[in-house]
């Protein structure tokens, strides 16, 4: 992964963040914060469960569009918003 050398800069919930290239958004949310991805309909915090794109618990807004955090790699300049009630 050559991660020690190559870092990706992006915005996670308004914060400038830096993660090794090849990091998924789900992993980045854990590396840089509490790992929370979304809110349930009753307002409970949700985090990734299956890690393979099935459970839909890791939906976050990426550049304004809903994406699965576990299936999306961090890219330079990305703007990620988690904790949304989607």
């Amino acid at each position, binding site marked *: 992964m050559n991660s020690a050398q190559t870092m990706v800069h992006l915005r996670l919930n308004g914060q400038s963040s830096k993660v090794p290239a090849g990091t998924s958004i789900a992993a980045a949310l854990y590396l840089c914060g509490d790992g929370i991805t979304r809110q349930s*309909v009753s307002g409970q915090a949700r985090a990734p469960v299956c890690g393979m794109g099935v459970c*839909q618990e890791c*939906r976050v807004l990426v550049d304004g569009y*809903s994406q699965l955090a576990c299936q999306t790699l961090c890219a330079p300049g990305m703007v990620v918003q988690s904790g949304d*009630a*989607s």
Partner: protein
Amino acid sequence: MDAEAIVIGAGIAGAACAYELCQRGLDVLVIDDGPSGATQAGMGHLVVMDDNPAELALSSASLAIWRDWLVRMDSSCGYSHCGTLWIAADEEEMQAAAEKQVRLQAAGISSMLIDALALATLEPALRRGLAGALQVASDGVLYAPNAARWLLGQGGRQGPGSQGSQGGPQGRISQSGQAANGTKSTGSVRVSQAQVHTLEDGCVRLADGSTRSAPHIVLAAGLRAAALCPELPLQAKKGHLAISARYPGMVHHQLVELGYVKSAHERSGTSVAFNVQPRPTGQLLIGSSRQFDTTDSAIEAPILARMLRRASHYLPGLGNLQIIRSWAGFRAATPDGLPLIGPHPQRPGLWLALGHEGLGVTTATGTAHLIAAGICASACALDGNAYLPVRCLQNV
């Protein structure tokens, strides 16, 4: 005797029958083997359907009973009084909407014809160019799996999600219905997770070889009843559904194309129709499809795609929404499209409450009233002749 009545199947029909029998003072044993059926797979649309007088009578009477039950039910049942908009794409369908209004009116169901402008105001997400709609305000939606659980939980015993700790195959009949002086005030419902292997005279034999006996046995196992009662003329109609992430306020009523009725009553071939339901969570439940001659519950991408294209044809913004899950299930259809409700003509003590096709959640209450009235030999406000199983089981 293990109970005064045994109900096989804990879906919405079985749960409603158990609830109503309990209300009338019977101790009821519900036996269910776990795998989900049409109650779990369906939309939970409480809708008056009027394709024939018998269907209209059953669905309208059932909705009236639901209104009575719903005031007692808790919020987990997810009831929403959203009404139905039957969408007319053109003037011909608008004429069909007007005729539908007359039929509904004759059954005491009020509805309102709305023009294109009013429709666009009520549901801005619909495409322009539609002719109008018939609004049936008394319809609603329900989360049927939880409604079934609630109904089963009212008899003093746990619902199907929590059985095992009590009320197993050797569990006792609840005494909660016995007043202190020994006279019975209300009945009880006990749910047992077990597989019924065969129906015998006055009892059911479970997969473990043991038997449970009761003077009345209600078979409410939908399509899976055919394994116990092979003479039942049930046909599986496969349907796909998809559900979106939450988009509150995008759709306000259950939206159904008037052409749905044509599709719903075909007896062969594959069809799709626009049928979208706003869930109380803001999610959109998107249907519908109908297929015959398959019992494979796998999602078929071409059918799902056709169904979603049809939905997008009415709701152009749908393509931008996120679908988070899709699945398929089966409706239990009878040859004439009406359910089988009442005594089995050749098997004494056996009652049938099945074959509701896509209308089982709506008509579960009317079914329960008919079954309970039959078992208790009491009068029923609803005339059940049209649904008697004898019409399909005369020559077996």
